[in-house]
């Protein structure tokens, strides 16, 4: 197997790791994903690209549980995601077995990021083509947390972030509109960010809310539609308020 132990990820003359940058390209082509941290809940949202008619949409779950208090959404190569998610799930249980404590969000993020980095510095392998948004509540402190990892293996904590397709527009929106929210307001903020880049409607968005008491809860399509309708109504009201007052009021 001598031919397969050559490193694929090597430095370019000007200090770039092209394979990692190409992996980031793959992430940029993946579906949009957003995460928003509130005071008592963290919301993950993913764009659902149009489902082929014959496909059973229930088998395509883009927001997954890693443990009872940790969830993950990602953008990029879904098959790579499956591998990372499996390893993370094993690590969550292994941690519980060895130290009798559930993982903190930072620990499991560091683990996933460490794995992603390993694959940028090993022979015969390519980097994982995905960026992950990891959310959860720390078991002792109960503090909510949102972290992001990328193919290079870097990770950091965020109040709100987006990755995947059009992540820049979503991030800009979040930077302009982020404020500390709780409960339903956090969900609305996440959906509003997603709606900037996704066709509106419950069919095209998957939303999950992580709370300390209930763990991860996936929202039903009907619930999402209702919130989207609320948001549209608020938008329409805001538009009407901006317009100069006319004889026939539109609102």
């Amino acid at each position, binding site marked *: 197997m001598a031919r397969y132990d050559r490193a694929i990820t090597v430095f370019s003359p000007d200090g770039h790791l092209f394979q990692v940058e190409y992996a980031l390209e793959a992430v940029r082509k993946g579906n949009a994903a957003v995460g928003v941290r509130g005071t008592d809940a963290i919301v993950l949202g993913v764009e659902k690209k149009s489902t082929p008619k014959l496909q059973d949409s229930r088998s395509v*779950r883009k927001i997954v*549980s*890693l*443990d009872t208090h940790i969830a993950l959404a990602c953008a990029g190569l879904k098959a790579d995601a499956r591998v990372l998610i*499996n390893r993370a*799930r*094993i690590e*969550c*249980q*292994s941690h*519980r*077995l060895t130290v009798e404590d559930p993982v903190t969000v930072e620990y499991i993020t560091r683990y996933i990021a460490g794995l992603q980095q390993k694959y940028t510095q090993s022979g015969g392998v390519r980097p994982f083509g995905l960026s992950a948004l990891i959310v959860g509540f720390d078991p002792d402190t109960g503090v909510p947390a949102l972290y992001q990892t990328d193919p290079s293996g870097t990770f950091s904590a965020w109040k709100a972030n987006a990755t995947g397709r059009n992540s820049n527009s979503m991030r800009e929106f979040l930077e302009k509109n982020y404020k500390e929210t709780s409960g339903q307001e956090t969900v609305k903020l996440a959906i509003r960010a997603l709606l900037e880049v996704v066709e509106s409607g419950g069919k095209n968005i998957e939303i999950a809310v992580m709370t300390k008491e209930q763990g991860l809860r996936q929202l039903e399509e009907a619930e999402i539609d209702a919130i989207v309708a609320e948001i549209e109504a608020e938008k329409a009201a805001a538009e009407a308020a901006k317009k100069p007052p006319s004889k026939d009021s539109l609102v």
Partner: protein
Amino acid sequence: MECVFGLVGDGFALVAADSSAVNSILVHKSNEDKIMILDSHKLLGASGEAGDRVQFTEYIQKNVHLYEFRNGIPLSTAAAANFTRGELAQALRKSPYSVNILLAGYDKDIGPSLYYIDYIATLHKVDKGAFGYGSFFSLSMMDRHYHSGMSLKEAVDLVDKCIVEIRTRLVVSPPNFVIKIVDKDGAKEYAWRETIKDAEEPTA
């Protein structure tokens, strides 16, 4: 002198275990919980070498949880029992675990079930089972009084009869027992049967 026994009743399965942790002639504690709640609808009562007991049952518990996270649904009781037996069998001719297990579970489609798994990886699906010296007494008691479809009250009465027998007839009988049940609403602790209580906390 560890005692673990269990039985299947009407819509529930029950496991009782003594709660003494002993090292030669020293009793470390009398409130050791030897019945692990494996997941929402499974109980694992274990007896045997103390280190092996905890190591092995915790290992099984974490792997059962891992299955649930990977697949989105919990393992069935039969699958969990077979997995446990498989792990014991694999280790048997390398570095065996000295743990005897009674695995009780409730599945929505099958109802309650009880599995007898001994330290050399024997697996039997049973209506009643017991391990340890106490089994001489509890098994005989259950043979006499058990019938299928017992109510919870009848079953607990039978368990109490068994505990009385063990207390009367076993030379170094454990002072305290714990009883746990699993039914459609989940696995939970039912009661303790104590003759030696820990010293009361001094009140302010």
